[in-house]
């Protein structure tokens, strides 16, 4: 039984069935990251996938833009409790990117410019569930939101949607990434509140 806090509730926010438990709605777009915002030149940008056997595919910015691009309308949920509904993105599906790689691996580690990492089971990246996104709301993605490109895995807490993403390493065994080593859940499903260890 939850403890009732005397007199609380006067300024409650509207609830919405699209909100996972423990989340509240925000209209703006909060920024959360562990350090300063990296700035990456499009000329220098690469996205690479390395398989568990060490073989690698990579795309330059122009090569990436030539891949099939999808529009994505989705809700996003941050572990710090804000959710934003009906956000719109453009990016390349992980299904498209993973087609170029032979792999039996079950897990991926996303790597970012700036050194951030986060682990995700490959099943969570396939079947139209994840993208590398480079546009938000019809504009190029702002650096503070992960531009030029970030991972977008909207069905998991947003720390899994690595900003400034530069690639994936496919792995046979799961390993914790940056926040996962620092107290966050290995999986991160907002609907079952997989927030912390």
């Amino acid at each position, binding site marked *: 039984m*939850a*403890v*009732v*806090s*005397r*007199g*609380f*509730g*006067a*300024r*409650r*926010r509207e*609830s919405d069935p699209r909100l996972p438990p*423990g989340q*509240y709605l925000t209209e703006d777009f*909060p*920024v*959360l*990251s*562990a*350090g*300063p*915002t*990296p700035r990456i030149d499009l000329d220098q940008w690469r996205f690479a996938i390395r398989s568990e056997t060490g073989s690698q595919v990579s795309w330059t910015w122009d090569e990436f833009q030539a891949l099939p691009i999808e529009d994505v309308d989705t809700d996003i949920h941050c572990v*710090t*409790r*804000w959710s934003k509904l009906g956000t719109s993105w453009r990016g390349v599906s992980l299904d498209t990117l993973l087609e170029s790689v032979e792999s039996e691996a079950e897990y991926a580690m996303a790597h970012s410019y*700036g*050194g951030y990492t986060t682990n995700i089971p490959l099943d969570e990246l396939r079947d139209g569930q994840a993208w590398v996104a480079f546009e938000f709301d019809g504009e190029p993605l702002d650096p*503070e939101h992960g531009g030029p490109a970030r991972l977008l895995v909207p069905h998991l807490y947003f720390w899994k949607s690595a900003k400034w993403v530069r690639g994936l390493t496919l792995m046979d065994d799961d390993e914790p990434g*940056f*926040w996962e*080593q*620092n*107290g966050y859940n290995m999986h991160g499903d907002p609907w079952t509140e997989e927030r*912390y*260890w």
Partner: protein
Amino acid sequence: MTVGGWQPARVVEAVGATPSARLLHLQVPGWPGNEAGQHVDIRLTAEDGYQAVRSYSIGSYGPGETIELAVDEIPDGEVSPYLVRDVLPGDELEVKGPLGGYFVWRPGGAAPVQLIAGGSGIVPLMAMVRAATDAGAAASVRLLYSVRTPEDAIYRDELERTATDGGVGLTWRYTRAAPDGWTGHVGRVDDDVLRAAVWEPGREPIFFVCGPTGFVEHVADALVGLGYPSARIRTERFGGG
């Protein structure tokens, strides 16, 4: 670090810290203690079962079953006005924590420490100031604290005392109005302020920067621009502007 479920907590003290902020002491039976810089999630439940949860940094550190929070009121907010105006000693709420294993300071490092706070961003940094003072490491710690006016500084007296006792090096930055007799500039933290207040790059300081998102973004960018490596700049963003 394993975080358990929600634990009941009782407000044992609630005192004004600034015109818009209040210090809350919570007694949490079975609290495992916390490191300097960690935070808790606070859960409030209304009579009809409605709940809201927000994160608050812990201003205290170490063992003991009482933790100190400092909450600044966001005028249109849902939770902070309740914690700043309505909650009274004896009232109950729930906490989960301690949380966060990254934005923490532990004694023993060789590098000097640079703390940079905007507004209520002082809270986790205050825990670090206290921990460093207790560990005899205060001389290697500098704090740059940006507030709108002198009255808006949480922990003002304790910080002044720590600084006068030969402890943490303290620099104030006022963005709207300075105290009487102030000879420095008034305005946002800029490169000049950072150059004057921060350990020089050659000393290879480690940074903890905390405050509203806009403040943290601005300061962290400026530090990178001044040549400090990103990898040594840890940030915690409280949200909002």
